[in-house]
């Protein structure tokens, strides 16, 4: 795919991108309600407003490619193909969860589809993806690894180490910065003194920026840059996007200017994608059907999760190490 991709993006492709984003949106909105109702334990970080990034990037990946995610990892998990049942069951802490209720929101993972886990440690996914890329390279797979990280993670030294190592070893590693301007309750502009665009070239690594709320832009740029990474080595894609909710659910965001929050609606990635569909003459009805279908799938997953069982303690404990018969 080349950058002419954007123009050429057909109805089916566009619908797929839209549907994937809508799925994440509806899943997280549903989660927000479940959380408010006290059905989700712990704390959850929603990626509402940022869906175009995982969907756009994942549209350029194959099933063999691996990703390492962040504390805000639902979108990555779902876009990579994590089944909804296992996802909801995990967030509700059930045995039927993909991680058998042991990890929850911050640790959703599905190794079978190359999703190496959300992560509770800011920046940690960078080095995990680096190692995954090293494995792809040394085992001569055609796969690449993708490290998602936020703009807050720009403060961590691990970024520097990983940029240098990826460049040194020409690893098939794509760094994707989801720059939503916030690090918890503070603008990251008050924490970070550099632009990635200025820093990354020093390592001899190509850098590409994208509107992170325009899924067509993200998917187009991702297609190009992923092709580069697969062929030649590491690259950085920075997606400027918007965190439309609090840092975590329950965060009233008093620290945020109401005007800023209001202005976000115009940049809503779902809305922008809808605009593309409208231009492709996709009727409102089809979108409605899509929504209904998605909501049905979600409700089925929620119902299944609610019917899930509590994990067994001894089984969990035994899983701290690999059972001897699996040695």
């Amino acid at each position: 795919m080349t950058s002419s991709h954007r123009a050429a993006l057909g109805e089916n492709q566009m619908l797929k991108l839209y549907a994937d984003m809508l799925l994440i949106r509806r899943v997280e909105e549903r989660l927000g309600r479940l959380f408010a109702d006290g059905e989700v334990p712990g704390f959850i970080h929603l990626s509402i407003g940022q869906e175009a990034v995982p969907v756009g990037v994942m549209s350029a990946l194959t099933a063999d490619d691996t990703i390492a995610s962040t504390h805000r990892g639902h979108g990555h998990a779902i876009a990579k193909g994590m089944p909804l049942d296992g996802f909801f069951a995990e967030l509700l802490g059930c045995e039927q969860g993909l991680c058998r209720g042991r990890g929850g929101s911050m640790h959703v993972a599905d190794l079978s589809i190359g999703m190496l886990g959300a992560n509770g440690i800011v920046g940690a996914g960078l080095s995990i993806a680096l190692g995954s890329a090293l494995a792809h390279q040394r085992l001569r797979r055609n796969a690449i690894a993708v490290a998602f990280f936020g703009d807050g993670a720009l403060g961590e030294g691990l970024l520097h180490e990983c940029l240098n190592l990826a460049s040194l070893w020409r690893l098939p590693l794509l760094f994707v910065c989801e720059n939503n301007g916030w690090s918890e309750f503070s603008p990251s502009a008050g924490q970070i003194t550099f632009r990635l665009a200025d820093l990354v070239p020093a390592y001899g690594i190509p850098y590409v920026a994208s509107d992170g709320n325009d899924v067509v832009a993200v998917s187009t740029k991702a297609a190009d840059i992923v092709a580069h990474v697969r062929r030649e080595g590491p690259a950085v894609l920075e997606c400027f996007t918007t965190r439309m909710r609090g840092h975590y659910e329950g965060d009233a965001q008093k620290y945020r200017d109401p005007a800023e929050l209001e202005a976000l609606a115009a940049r809503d990635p779902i809305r922008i994608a809808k605009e593309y569909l409208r231009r492709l003459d996709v009727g409102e009805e089809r979108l409605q059907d899509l929504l209904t279908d998605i909501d049905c799938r979600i409700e089925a997953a929620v119902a299944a999760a609610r019917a899930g069982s509590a994990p067994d303690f001894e089984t969990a404990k035994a899983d701290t190490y690999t059972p001897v018969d699996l040695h």
Partner: protein
Amino acid sequence: MPELRYIRAINQALADALEADPSVILLGEDVSAAGGAFGATRGLRDRFGAERVIDTPISEAALAGAAVGAALSGLKPVLEIMFMDFTTLVMDALVNQAAKARFMFGGQRSVPLVVRTPHGGGLSAGPQHSQCLEAWFAHVPGLKVVCPADPASAYGLLRAAIADPDPVIVVENKALYATKAEVPEVLEPVPIGHAAVIRPGRDLTLVSYGGAVHTCMAAAGILANEGIEAEVVDLRSLQPWDEATVMNSLSRTHRLIVVHEAVEAFGIGAEIAARMADIGFDELDAPILRVGAPFMPVPFSKALERKYLPSADAVVQAARKVLA
């Protein structure tokens, strides 16, 4: 006596320390404008300014190292590490630099820094936001470690830590943040290294710290109904810990159980038990038991975490065992 929340006691201690000593500064992620992820530093920026209550990027390693350099250069930095699980990122600065600088520079200068960090589960925060790692720090010569169980000692230990010339790790229990208790009119520093007998009893000694102190008190209540009088010792300080008070109690009760939320194996309780199996051997009428977390990561799901956390029931059962 007035009531005070644990988190407010910490806030008060920080405010009083900032007030008392102009060389005290606070550093941490979201500690200033936002007042801290758990609210420990709320209002302090307004009172003391952003020059002394300092928001930082997410750069734990450099901040801890900077705390060492600042402490060697005339400041008394108090660094907040948002979850104890993230102390994995500051081990070099604390262990190789802070703990050793005084010793390895021949006593030329001390390193008066404090790291405040919350440990503990119970909030379904999952495997990377719930760990109790204090045993690591207690193993490091040059560091001190304290862990308050109630608002008065949360205040007092933190004041003592900030006044201390050596590096102190102040471990707070996040499940206690919202709890309240009565405190004296005038809050005072609590000296590091002193345990408190918070419930006297003749039949057995429960030694504990942090959140598990309340588990022990609950267990002691249940046991009292059976006519068993458990003495409860709140260690308060883990490094140095108050051997004399524990020994004293043991030599009256002759039975010892150590209780903590941290993983039992190689935890704080191991040292207490090992020490008492040495100097307290002649006083022991029963095996020393420990009640701590099982050897597994802290699980997310409520059902699992409930079983994971040491319970008053487990303490009661251990008590019956040492009395059998």
